[in-house]
């Protein structure tokens, strides 16, 4: 890689999770052990391979490069080693094996407001926090007004931060870190806090950091939409190892579809599905999402989607079928499909299995992650079977055909529609088509 600023080679970190050694010790033994601790550690590291009393590899054999100006997202389940990786790269803890080379000033933001003291005022905390993040006093003084303006706390500058609302606190903390101007910025799940507007502002600031100023950002998030919008590349950590690495949208998609082995598979057997309610006289047995006739978890914005499900009726009955689509993270219900809207559909069914196909021409969803909730109700609207949180899927713009996906940072709302746009007057275009 031409301009690598981060090079990680075979990085590994081992933790001791057992506390066996410390159990049932007298105070004297503890004291002796305390003094001997650094001498012993070395031996235990050496013997690590053959002794497995509670030793785990939080991170193992991780290697990757990051070029200057790249924004790299790190994804993975809880406990996959994301935070450990960031902690090693921010020098908070040392790796057990391997090494990492970083070129330029590194700033890490593993938590919002680290080092803030509740008793100190906003003004005092800006200086303290700035110094802790590695800024010089003169530098902080220079950017002071900018930080205050970004955090929107002008009026509360001389109030102790313990009296701040949590939103103000987060804004101030992020503002200090955002103005650090590092060459490399390492950010852990910090956007989970703060309101939506501020999140957007932070995302914007982070984008500004990398795009305009050629800075490199490493970014851990569970917010796949933000991650896909913000990152060019992504790294998927799974139980301490790199499972996939590459273009962000592709890795996110791969990651989400792996979760799908259970909840988000585009093709799922619902016979033993746990997350459901209803009397169960009529039950869903199977559901799948199709694109071009094949099971798929990834769909195009304003493109086609087919929802197909099978249900079993014990007796001949009349059903009310509905499907509700909701966002993955916040579980906001976005749209509902009901069989009543389809005039040709006959809700009278005989006993036995029935498969229904719901064809959507142009999926009116913005880019993001969603899932379905399928409902079977009686005529009196009593729930027979309601299956929640199935068929997770992703909506993309242009389905990975372009090298960089549409950045929906500018996309508002959850829905979109194909509309007809045209000028009302004739001849107002500057250049007439040839």
């Amino acid at each position, binding site marked *: 890689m031409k301009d690598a600023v981060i090079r990680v080679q075979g990085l590994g970190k081992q933790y001791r999770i057992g506390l066996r050694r410390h159990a049932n010790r007298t105070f004297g033994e503890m004291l002796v052990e305390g003094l001997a*601790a650094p001498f012993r550690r070395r031996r235990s590291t050496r013997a690590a391979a053959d002794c497995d009393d509670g030793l785990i590899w939080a991170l193992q054999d991780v290697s990757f490069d990051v070029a200057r100006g790249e924004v790299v997202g790190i994804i993975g389940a809880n406990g996959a080693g994301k935070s450990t990786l960031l902690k090693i790269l921010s020098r908070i*803890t*040392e*790796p057990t094996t391997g090494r*990492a080379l970083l070129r330029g000033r590194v700033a890490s933001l593993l*938590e919002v407001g680290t*080092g803030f003291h509740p008793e100190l005022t906003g003004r005092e905390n800006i200086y303290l926090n700035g110094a*802790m993040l*590695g800024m010089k006093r003169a530098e902080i003084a220079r950017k002071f007004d900018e930080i205050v303006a970004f955090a929107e706390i002008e009026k509360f500058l001389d109030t102790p931060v313990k009296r701040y609302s949590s939103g103000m606190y987060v804004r101030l903390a992020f503002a200090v870190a955002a103005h650090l101007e590092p060459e490399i910025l390492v950010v852990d799940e910090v956007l989970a806090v703060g309101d939506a507007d501020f999140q957007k502002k932070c995302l914007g600031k982070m984008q500004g950091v990398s795009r305009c100023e050629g800075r490199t950002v490493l970014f851990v998030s569970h917010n796949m939409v933000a991650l896909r919008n913000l990152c060019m590349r992504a790294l998927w950590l799974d139980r301490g190892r790199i499972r996939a690495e590459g273009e962000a949208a592709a890795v996110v998609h791969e990651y989400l579809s792996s979760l799908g082995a259970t909840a988000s598979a585009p093709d799922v057997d619902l016979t033993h599905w746990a997350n459901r309610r209803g009397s169960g006289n009529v039950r869903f047995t199977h559901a799948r999402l199709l694109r071009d006739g094949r099971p798929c978890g990834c769909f195009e914005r304003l493109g086609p989607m087919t929802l197909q499900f099978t249900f079993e009726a014990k007796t001949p009955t009349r059903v009310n079928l509905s499907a509700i689509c909701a966002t993955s993270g916040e579980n906001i219900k976005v749209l509902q499909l009901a069989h009543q809207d389809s005039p040709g559909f006959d809700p009278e069914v005989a006993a036995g299995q029935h498969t229904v196909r719901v064809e959507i021409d142009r999926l009116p969803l913005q880019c993001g992650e969603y899932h379905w909730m399928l409902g079977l109700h009686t005529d009196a609207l009593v729930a027979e079977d309601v299956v929640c949180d199935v068929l997770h899927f992703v909506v993309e713009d242009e389905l990975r055909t372009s090298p960089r996906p549409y950045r929906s940072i500018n996309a508002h709302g959850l829905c979109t529609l194909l509309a007809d746009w045209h000028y009302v007057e004739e001849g107002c275009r500057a250049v007439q088509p040839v």
Partner: protein
Amino acid sequence: MTRAVSQTTAINAALAAADGPLLVIRPTPGWRAIAVGELWRYRELLYFLVWRDIKVRYKQTVIGAAWAILQPVCTMVIFSIFFGAFARIPSDGVPYPVFVYAGLLPWLFFANAVSQGGVSLASQTHLLTKVYFPRLFLPAASMGVGLVDFALAFTVYLGLMLWYGQAPGLEILLVPFLVGLTATTALGVGVLLAALTVAYRDFRIVVPFMVQIWFFLTPVVYPLTIVPESWRWLMALNPMTGIISGFRAALLGQPIDWPALSAAVVVSCGALVVGILYFRRTERFFADVA
């Protein structure tokens, strides 16, 4: 570091060719020296940490920094009444309040720095696990706070000397050196205890107890002259003995006990080296055990 950089250059010319400082992160087994360059780069943080501790301590207090003076003065008054007036402990011919205050000044500096420094890491684990900066600054900041308190309490001593008409001699020039020596001892012990406390919380209990015992093993309320001659060499192994005797001598214009002072220099420098070595050696695990 130099070796690491050259090694890296050989392995990775592309990376090394880019501008900006190169940071190498890798396991560093064994003993480590102090990263002087880094301490220097972060020096302003040390100032801010001391400033923070002082500022926070007197937030929402009525008399504020006067506490820094009130505490040693009250202690001095009580000691003068019980040890001086009632128990009639000899004070080498100077008024007992002056005598005991001259000992209390360095002792309180030392005791506060050690007890605050000892818990400095364990009470701020949120910093250890979330942000990088030279860890040495946390116990060092406690020492800095002690130094500020010492300076405030020292002004009272000057008043006390005027009151009793005790004029300082040329020996008073030795005071900065003795303050430095106290700081060295306090830093050495504080740093060691900080590293131990973060891993073994037993030391949270041990430290206050230890400081109390140490107080009685140090000639603060009594002069070294009441200790039998044959035991004095043992007393001198405690660096605070030499320091406090030296303080009294410098402030009260008495002859200086050079052998005891030399012993104090050796022992306190030794304590600093041992403390820092242990600290640096265990530093890499702080975030894991905190």
